[in-house]
């Protein structure tokens, strides 16, 4: 079957797989109807991140689902759809019926299930996993994650001596990812990766921390995409020196994840603005943060 239906607490999550031609043995609208009657859930999210394309026939089946939900005052949203899918929906005059959001969070906000003050745990874990993997595979450092916490707005300084910063943007927020570490750790990574031994940080090597932030974001994006979140990213920049500050976007919530290593503690921070209803277009890749 080209799809899977799983019930979450408050909505049905339908994962679309591969090309959706609408020629499954059991049509999606029939299967969906049965699942809906069983669970009584009236909200549905269609995760299209692994859907390569849709046929007009398949769209008609989705439109049938829309009609049924609408009768019960239910709602449905598509998330993570690629340009081909969005285009096909538009060409068939169904873009106000089969509404596409860039991320799962956008859909939940539409359903009234997510408020701007919350921070989504599903969103944080990919950053945690990505940080560990990248430090292990690329920098040869074992990093043990500590408990994530919310940074207080009265505390704007980054924790480390040097930080790599990269902007992230999605449909529902704009923000930054920062990897911040003590000088000693950076010098150790420098040695592990480039074989360079130095007594202190110099201008010509700082880009390495920006590159680490870049790779971590790249990995986090992959996991986030499978959850229905689509992010765009900019080119990274690096800041260093004691008391260096991070450039915040929107002055919103900031989650800090500490990591313990044999060379000290470093921090992965994800900062976003709280204006989650602000509509954003697809950002272009920008130079620096």
């Amino acid at each position, binding site marked *: 079957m080209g799809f899977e239906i799983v019930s979450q607490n408050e909505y049905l999550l339908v994962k679309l797989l591969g090309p959706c031609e609408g020629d499954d043995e059991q049509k999606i609208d029939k299967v969906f109807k049965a699942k809906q009657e069983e669970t009584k859930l009236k909200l549905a999210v269609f995760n299209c991140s692994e859907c390569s394309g849709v046929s007009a026939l398949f769209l008609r089946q989705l439109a049938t689902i829309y009609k049924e939900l609408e009768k019960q005052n239910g709602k449905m949203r598509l998330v993570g759809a690629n340009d081909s899918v969005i285009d096909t929906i538009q*060409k068939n005059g169904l873009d106000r*019926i089969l509404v596409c959001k860039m991320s799962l969070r956008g859909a939940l906000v539409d359903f009234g299930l997510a408020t701007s003050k919350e921070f989504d745990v599903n969103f944080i874990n990919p950053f945690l996993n990505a940080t560990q993997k990248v430090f292990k595979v690329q920098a040869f450092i074992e990093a043990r994650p500590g408990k994530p916490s919310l940074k207080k707005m009265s505390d704007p300084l980054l924790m480390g001596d040097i930080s790599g910063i990269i902007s992230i943007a999605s449909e529902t927020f704009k923000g930054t990812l920062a990897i911040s570490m003590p000088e000693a750790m950076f010098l150790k990574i420098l040695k592990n990766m480039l074989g360079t031994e130095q007594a202190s940080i110099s201008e010509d090597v700082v880009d390495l921390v920006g590159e680490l932030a870049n790779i971590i974001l790249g990995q986090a994006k992959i996991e986030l995409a499978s959850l229905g979140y689509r992010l765009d990213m900019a080119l990274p920049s690096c800041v260093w020196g004691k008391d260096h500050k991070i450039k915040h976007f929107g002055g919103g919530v900031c989650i800090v994840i500490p990591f313990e290593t044999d060379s000290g503690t470093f921090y992965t921070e994800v900062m976003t603005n709280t204006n989650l209803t602000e509509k954003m277009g697809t950002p272009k890749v920008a130079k620096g943060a």
Partner: protein
Amino acid sequence: MNKKIRVLIVDDSKGLRQIIMRYIKDLNDIEFFEAGNGEEAEQILQEQALKEMPIKIVVLDWVMPKVTGFEFLKKIRSVQIFEKDPRVIMLSAETYSDLVNACMKYGVEKYVTKPFTQEQLAEAFESTLKKVKVASGF
């Protein structure tokens, strides 16, 4: 067969929408729909098409916030099912001929300049309504 003709009024001013409906409601068998902007209008068009009870005539204001009537018109005409139908009556204070011509390219049946009298609107609507009825085999 359901003989009602479905008409969508698109204007950001609720007062003006009501005036428009009053001006043409004397003509029988009309079912009215209203939208305050291009996005709402698109949604109604698509939903009605889905239910197989399509909108046949749109009375459309040009100047609206976010998406203008002209942009809305271009977008719906680019979709196959809305290429010819619904027929569109455009309302605008604009008389500049280049703009009027640009509009006509996207299939506007009648162009009514503001301010308009009841007679002017009713006349434009009636002639459009006649064409719709003929095309639908009424």
